[in-house]
């Protein structure tokens, strides 16, 4: 698309002549070019095309027989527009619409949580009728109605602007929140009064222009003049959505989007919005040392000195690799830099991500796509067993939008994910077959050839062989390869179970290093990229054998918990039981604290100050609203610990960042002061090197006879904060998805309580039946139970 030639049109609005790009909606043109506000309620461009429902924006257009909605009208050349400011007729219409809107709207602003932040209240003050001519009883409804444990609905306040339902159907595409009935009886509702089940549901509370949809947690909590809004960035996943945290009396009462269009488009997922590390009094608030009676509080300096001494001793006594520092991709860059320096000094092993493959993702940096590339993509391919939204919340919304805007969406995987229903291509594969699928595509693209295609893929097999290995239909693979080969701006999104070599191979043949598309692997940790960029790379899985072999005698977990979050939970537990010195830095007691000799407090989201690097490499500032529960920020005590070890670690986040900028290439050119509230993407694409070749992917694991293969990726709604947030209980409620054919064979119907048994235990959930899930597999929303590919059985309870 060439941006050089933009057609413009010239029109007058209330006598002011303006020139705007062709196609600009009149409401936008009036506000942005003529400085004239045309009031709106239903208009919200992020929800798709305008619908012209509320009629608040009616204006007079010279020559038109009747008033026109300024939101649905595009500016035309020579148009003469009169808004309510200069047109009697438009003014009268505006009064009329407000009067109609207020007919049944209760006048309860003083007790409404929206009061003071309410567009309807504001517009009524500005333009509204002084008194109502409505003498009949107002419409009443049962209220407040919980739409979910997180959201309440007051139908009396609803003005039916359809923002919430459009979000549900046209942005999140979950179709959970709808309007039912029609005419004056229309109401917003969910199906059969069930809770809104969608991980983006909270956005409707921000979209609602009145106090009809409100977050339960914020009801009656605060008035607008009592609060402080702190601009920060969500650390729930690697997307890094920009947020406001609303602070009142030392509590974060609410999280709102801060709309950084290039990152989040103003959306948040419910994890970022509602999950809280609460209650604060259950948090680990002081250092704890294991004594005879278990973990006992200790003085900071004592604990840190002991820790320093013991780590130094282990390292000195057993040499390189005797100590390990394990992180979970959730530290700030500055905190991570401190731990990286300590680890380097101790010649420690490091690991920052559950799987090793992630450690090598830098190899494809030459092709790394910015999030914005999804918007303009003409083809988007999602590869992996996991749904993109489970890895990187709002990225899923971007993928959906790209599809609505005409991109060819292809999903490959074992099926049962939410994106398949409307994808142009769905190629069903075995579980954990991403590598084989990528290799098959790489060779098929090379064979298809095309303007952008490099045809020198080094085959690891034929397309037929690789497709068969993946369990995919060859014809579909070839067809998708053809689509990709022709695409100008393809984007590959990789969720899991993929080796970097295969991504590299496909990216190379597609020439993604030189084109407009790219690859976007979705990390597990919110700052996995940042941690790697400061030297904490590696997979937990790689440490485990060394730990089991006794080669590691001291291990520090900083925000990492393989006992809870890894498929090899039991092996970790057994190995740790034999490890001499285990230190755990965590917000709450967790899977690894049970085996720790020393436990230290970990700061969480709203307590931290620093920077994180999101999945596209954007460095953004996290600002604290609260002091850490321990009173001592992690970065400060890390610096203190370093002092005991004679290592230089900067304890001030700003200085630490500027040091990073001076020393680490990933941060070159950035400065603490220069990051700004909406950070730009500063990233240089390294030159691509030809890949070494496509190694033969390993065959997916076969199930034991009579058993199903388990698919157990980690869902978005997981982690310590989610687990502690009562209002998210319905979103993490366990379910078990089985294929239609397997369900029929097993006599299981939707909604049954079923039990999944596997080597690592059993798991009970509600049955979901999918017609797309690969028969012979079972998908659960629970990770860490057993690895994907493990054999399992499913039975009705």
């Amino acid at each position: 698309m060439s941006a050089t030639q933009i057609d413009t049109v010239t029109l007058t609005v209330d006598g002011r002549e303006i020139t705007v790009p062709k196609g600009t909606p009149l409401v936008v043109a009036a506000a942005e070019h003529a400085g004239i506000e045309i009031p709106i309620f239903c208009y919200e461009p992020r929800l798709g095309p305008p619908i012209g429902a509320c009629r608040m924006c009616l204006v007079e257009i010279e020559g038109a027989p009747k008033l026109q909605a300024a939101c649905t009208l595009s500016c035309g050349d020579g148009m003469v527009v009169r808004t309510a400011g200069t047109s009697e007729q438009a003014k009268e219409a505006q009064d009329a619409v407000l009067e109609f809107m207020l007919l049944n709207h209760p006048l309860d602003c003083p007790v409404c949580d929206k009061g003071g932040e309410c567009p309807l209240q504001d517009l009524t003050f500005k333009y509204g009728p002084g008194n109502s001519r409505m003498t009949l009883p107002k419409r009443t409804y049962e209220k407040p109605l919980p739409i979910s444990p997180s959201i309440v609905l007051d139908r009396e306040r609803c003005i039916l602007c359809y923002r919430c339902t459009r979000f549900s159907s046209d942005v999140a595409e979950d179709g959970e929140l709808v309007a039912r009935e029609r005419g004056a009886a229309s109401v917003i509702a969910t199906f059969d009064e069930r809770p809104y089940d969608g991980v983006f549901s909270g956005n409707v509370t921000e979209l609602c222009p009145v106090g009809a949809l409100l977050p339960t947690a914020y009801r009656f909590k605060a008035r607008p003049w009592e609060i402080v809004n702190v601009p920060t960035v969500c650390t729930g996943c690697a997307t890094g959505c920009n947020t406001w945290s609303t602070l009142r009396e030392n509590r974060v009462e609410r999280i709102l989007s801060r709309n950084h269009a290039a990152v989040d488009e103003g959306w948040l997922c419910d994890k970022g919005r509602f999950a809280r590390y609460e209650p604060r009094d259950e948090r680990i608030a002081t250092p704890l040392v294991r004594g005879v009676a278990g973990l006992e509080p200790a003085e900071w300096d004592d604990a840190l000195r002991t820790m320093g001494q013991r780590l130094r001793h282990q390292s000195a006594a057993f040499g390189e690799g005797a100590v390990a520092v394990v992180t979970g991709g959730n530290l700030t860059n500055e905190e991570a830099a401190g731990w990286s320096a300590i680890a380097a000094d101790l010649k420690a092993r490091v690991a920052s991500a559950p799987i090793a493959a992630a450690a090598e993702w830098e190899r494809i940096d030459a092709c790394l796509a910015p999030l914005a590339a999804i918007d303009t993509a003409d083809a988007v391919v999602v590869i992996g067993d996991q749904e993109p939204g489970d890895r990187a919340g709002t990225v899923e919304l971007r993928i959906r939008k790209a599809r609505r805007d005409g991109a060819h969406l292809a999903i490959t995987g074992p099926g049962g994910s939410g994106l398949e229903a409307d994808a142009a291509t769905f190629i069903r594969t075995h579980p954990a077959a991403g590598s084989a699928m990528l290799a098959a595509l790489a060779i098929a693209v090379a064979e298809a050839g095309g303007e952008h295609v490099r045809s020198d893929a080094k085959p690891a097999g034929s397309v037929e062989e690789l497709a068969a290995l993946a369990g995919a239909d060859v014809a579909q693979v070839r067809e998708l390869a053809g689509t990709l080969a022709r695409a100008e701006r393809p984007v590959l999104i990789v969720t899991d179970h993929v080796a970097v070599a295969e991504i590299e191979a496909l990216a190379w043949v597609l020439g993604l290093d030189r084109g407009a598309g790219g690859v976007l692997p979705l990390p597990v940790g919110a700052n996995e990229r940042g941690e790697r960029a400061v030297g904490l790379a590696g997979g937990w899985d790689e440490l485990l054998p060394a730990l089991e072999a006794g080669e590691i005698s001291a291990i520090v977990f900083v925000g990492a918990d393989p006992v809870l979050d890894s498929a090899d939970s039991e092996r970790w537990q057994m190995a740790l039981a034999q490890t001499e010195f285990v230190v755990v830095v965590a917000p709450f007691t967790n899977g690894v604290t049970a085996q720790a000799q020393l436990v230290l407090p970990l700061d969480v989201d709203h307590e931290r100050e620093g920077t994180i690097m999101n999945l596209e490499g954007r460095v953004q500032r996290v600002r604290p609203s609260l002091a850490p529960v321990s009173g001592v920020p992690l970065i400060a005590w890390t610096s203190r610990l370093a002092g005991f070890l004679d290592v230089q670690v900067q304890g001030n986040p700003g200085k630490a960042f500027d040091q990073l900028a001076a020393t680490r290439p990933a941060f070159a050119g950035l400065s603490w002061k220069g990051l700004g509230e909406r950070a730009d993407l500063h990233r240089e694409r390294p030159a691509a090197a030809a890949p070494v070749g496509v190694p033969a992917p390993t065959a997916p694991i076969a199930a034991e006879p009579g058993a199903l293969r388990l698919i157990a990726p980690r869902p978005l709604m997981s982690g310590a904060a989610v687990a502690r947030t009562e209002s998210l209980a319905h979103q993490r409620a366990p379910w078990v998805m089985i294929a239609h054919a397997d369900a029929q064979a097993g006599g299981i119907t939707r909604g049954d309580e079923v039990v999944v048994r596997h080597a690592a235990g059993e798991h009970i959930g509600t049955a979901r039946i999918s017609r797309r899930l690969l028969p012979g597999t079972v998908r659960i929303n629970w990770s860490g139970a057993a690895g994907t590919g493990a054999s399992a059985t499913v039975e009705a309870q």
Partner: protein
Amino acid sequence: MSDTLYDEIQREIAKYPDRRSAILPALRHAQEHYGWLSPEALEAVADGLDLPPARCLAVASFYDMFFLQPVGEHVVEVCTNLSCALIGADRLLREFERELDVKAPGTSEDGKITLRCVECLGGCGWGPVVSVDEEYEEHFKIEDVAPLLERLRSTSRPSESHA
């Protein structure tokens, strides 16, 4: 039964380039199978169309011909719009109410017959119009009420299994 419905829905989908367009026929089939659009029926439609059940509810509740509450075995609908009202639909309805001992909209005590009034059925010149199980009876007279109800009371609606 739900497999038959699934297959019927797939046949409807085949008539359109987009599966969403089959929602009205799908809902109609489901209503025939279940007698009314219970949550279970709507979920079966959702399954057949690969759409969220709430969307099926949103669509179903928009239209007058879909029942989101159980109804009797027979449904008697009296047009009470202008043309029919001008020529006596109101008196006709009163007679139905008296005979069935129920106020419209409502269902007779024995669960056999649901009576309701509807908007113009498009038989205005041949009115008053009464629609009985979706079949029009035109030029309907007060004297026709009792015999009609007699007939309905003694017959079940054919071809449908009420769930």
